[in-house]
């Protein structure tokens, strides 16, 4: 192949993803919340949702023709079946310029309603565990008690919200472990203080 053919191939490789990336993201929502699925079209007479699928759990949640409520150029369908954490893909179609046109976008559902905060979680877990361990093994009663309390609140938080986009058996086990270890650090240090002074 000559140089210009290689360049043409390179241009195609860059253009193909731009053409095929029709799926857009609506945002991130909390598990169990209702989501307003919107579509904008200035010259459509209708827009219908044909299916909503959930990955990795859930599979096909709805399938058929679901009419979206129109308000000017704004079409809306409220979907409340967001029981699983993961990616939800919405497929639909509308008559843009008189032609039946399909569209698709996705949104994410996470236990906390936030995504890509794993770094924050790692820092938070590191700091809280650091305070607890430093207080306990450094024989500092007050730091140990306050670290233990922090660990209990961290355990409760991860139990409710999971860790970033994950909430499964492992995150729940981590939560219970953190609550237990925090309680041990705090109560042991308190009892040790009483014991030393009696």
């Amino acid at each position, binding site marked *: 192949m000559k140089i210009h053919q290689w360049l043409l191939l390179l241009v195609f490789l860059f253009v193909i993803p731009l053409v095929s990336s029709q799926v857009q993201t609506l945002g991130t929502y909390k598990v169990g919340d209702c989501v307003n699925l919107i579509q904008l079209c200035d010259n459509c007479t209708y827009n219908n949702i044909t299916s909503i699928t959930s990955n990795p759990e859930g599979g096909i949640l709805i399938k058929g023709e679901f009419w979206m409520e129109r308000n000017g150029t704004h079409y809306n369908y409220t979907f409340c079946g967001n029981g699983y954490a993961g990616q939800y893909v919405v497929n639909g179609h509308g008559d843009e310029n008189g032609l039946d046109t399909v569209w698709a976008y996705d949104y994410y559902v996470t236990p906390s309603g936030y995504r890509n905060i794993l770094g924050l979680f790692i820092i938070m877990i590191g700091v809280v565990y650091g305070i607890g361990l430093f207080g306990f093994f450094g024989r500092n009663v007050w730091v140990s008690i306050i670290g233990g309390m922090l660990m209990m609140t961290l355990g409760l938080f991860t139990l409710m919200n999971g860790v970033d986009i994950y909430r499964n058996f492992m995150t729940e086990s981590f939560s219970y472990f953190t609550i237990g270890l925090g*309680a041990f650090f705090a109560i042991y240090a308190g009892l040790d203080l009483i014991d030393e002074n009696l």
Partner: protein
Amino acid sequence: MLGNVIGGFIVILVGTSLMPTVAQQVGLAQGNENVTGASDTLVGLTTLFYALAIATSAIGIAALGLRQSGLM
């Protein structure tokens, strides 16, 4: 002595300030359908553990004060 009094005061202050939040979160966690059985009991005990930590701090600082003042 003063360091222990300040340390104990801060721990009790922070602990009692966070106590309602912890109790509320425990209630919410127990209302979650994923938390059942032994997990539900353990989560319910978190409020007690938390309160025990504050109580032992208060008792500990009182014992320390009494000991250092020669009353115990």
